[in-house]
């Protein structure tokens, strides 16, 4: 059997719909959740809140060292057994991706916060600014600007890990191609090749754009 163009064009619209509806949506929501949660983690760690900081360090370590598929199963199938919430597959996927990447983002933010010159902290203290203002108006704007390209790179990583949501039956791009389309036609070559090409077509230009942003911001201080 060889490549069948007609079949390929036939299934392309369905793949693109699944891509936008699930893959992109999961990436955007997961990135937003991860970036905000990661920021909270980073500030808690930096502020050295007793107990909470140590607990957070352990959680981050465990999340970073265990596989995403395991975490997906744990949240989707096991959490409800111990009285946890029952999630829709997509919601479970977004939560797991978000928390998983928050544990990477926390290091990125830390690098950004560390890169803010001590003089900025001292100046803010000398001006008698409240803690909230020091963080929101002095430190974070400078820190986040520095790590923007790194945050973007992690978003691309997450994007390429959205197919993992296949394991909890989210009908994202890979699931649609492999289960819903090829499952009935039994022709895998075209759908799976198209899936790869769609991923490449989306991630490569984004990576290039981020590289350009990185040069422009001159942020070699980033992780």
């Amino acid at each position, binding site marked *: 059997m060889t490549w069948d163009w007609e079949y390929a064009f036939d299934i392309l619209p369905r793949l693109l719909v699944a891509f936008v509806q699930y893959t992109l949506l999961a990436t955007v929501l997961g990135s937003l959740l991860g970036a905000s949660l990661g920021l909270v983690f980073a500030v808690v760690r930096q502020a050295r809140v007793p107990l909470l900081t140590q607990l957070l360090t352990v959680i981050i370590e465990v999340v970073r060292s265990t596989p995403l598929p*395991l975490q997906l199963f744990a949240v989707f199938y096991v959490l409800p057994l111990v009285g946890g919430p029952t999630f829709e597959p997509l919601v479970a996927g977004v939560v797991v991706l978000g928390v998983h990447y928050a544990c990477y983002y926390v290091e990125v933010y830390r690098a950004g916060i560390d890169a803010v010159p001590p003089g900025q902290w001292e100046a803010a203290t000398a001006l008698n600014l409240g803690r909230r203002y020091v963080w929101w108006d002095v430190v974070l704007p400078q820190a986040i600007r520095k790590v923007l390209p*790194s945050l973007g790179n*992690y978003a691309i990583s997450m994007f390429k890990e959205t197919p993992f949501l296949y394991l909890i039956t989210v009908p994202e791009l890979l699931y649609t191609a492999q289960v819903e389309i090829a499952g009935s036609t039994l022709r*895998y070559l075209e759908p799976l090749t198209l*899936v790869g090409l769609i991923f490449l077509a989306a991630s490569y230009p984004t990576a290039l754009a981020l590289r350009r942003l990185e040069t422009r911001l001159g942020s070699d201080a980033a992780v």
Partner: protein
Amino acid sequence: MGDTTLVEYVPLLLEGLQITLLLTLLGAILMFVVAFVLGLASRSNRTWLRGIARTIIELFRGTSLFVQLFWLFLALPQLGVRLSPLLCGVLALGLNYGAYGAEVVRGSLNAVPGAQREAAIALNLSAWHRMRRVIWPQAVVLMLPAFNNLLIQLLKGTPLVIAISLVDVFAVGVAFRNAGGDAVLMFLVVLPAIYLLLAYAMTFGMTLLEVTAKARLGDGRGLRDAIRNLRPGADPEGMHVPAGAGGVR
């Protein structure tokens, strides 16, 4: 819970663990080979060689590990090539993370200060000796932390083989749950503990290598200090090459 107990599943878990370890080991070997070949080729003076290397790197970095795994297992047979599930797993893991590793190799080699190379030329060292005795030992020190991250990423990618009918330790855990076993115990205690342990063991091994490599450069930071900083903090892009290692991503 059902009557399936964890004790009954210990032998199966050990068998699954063997598959996980085999995938990780063979995948890692392939990853290193691919990383070095593509990493060196992407620094070549020959445009065509660089072009081929860059194309392969971007292809494997850009298309997602899980998609590659399915492609090798389901799409490739339609082109007349049928590979065993284990080989598919090893190929997907090795090629995907090898492509990331190639960027680590390239970035680390580029990060060795230019004066080192000039000094080696001034001393009339051959191209081979320059690489082998001067550039490479310094680049390796920069590479090891990033490779540690990639190894842990690779380990964390192994459970995907459940989708191509391989029974690794994660798949045994899933089977245990399906048979009515205590899913809470399996997924919140046993499996996380296994993966944490493997990740720490890997980090420990790589830290030893790093200390050795640094000692060769005359930077004896002592083993105790290194162990104190032991953390397997895996990083999805293997991005821990120090600043200045230009374009590692």
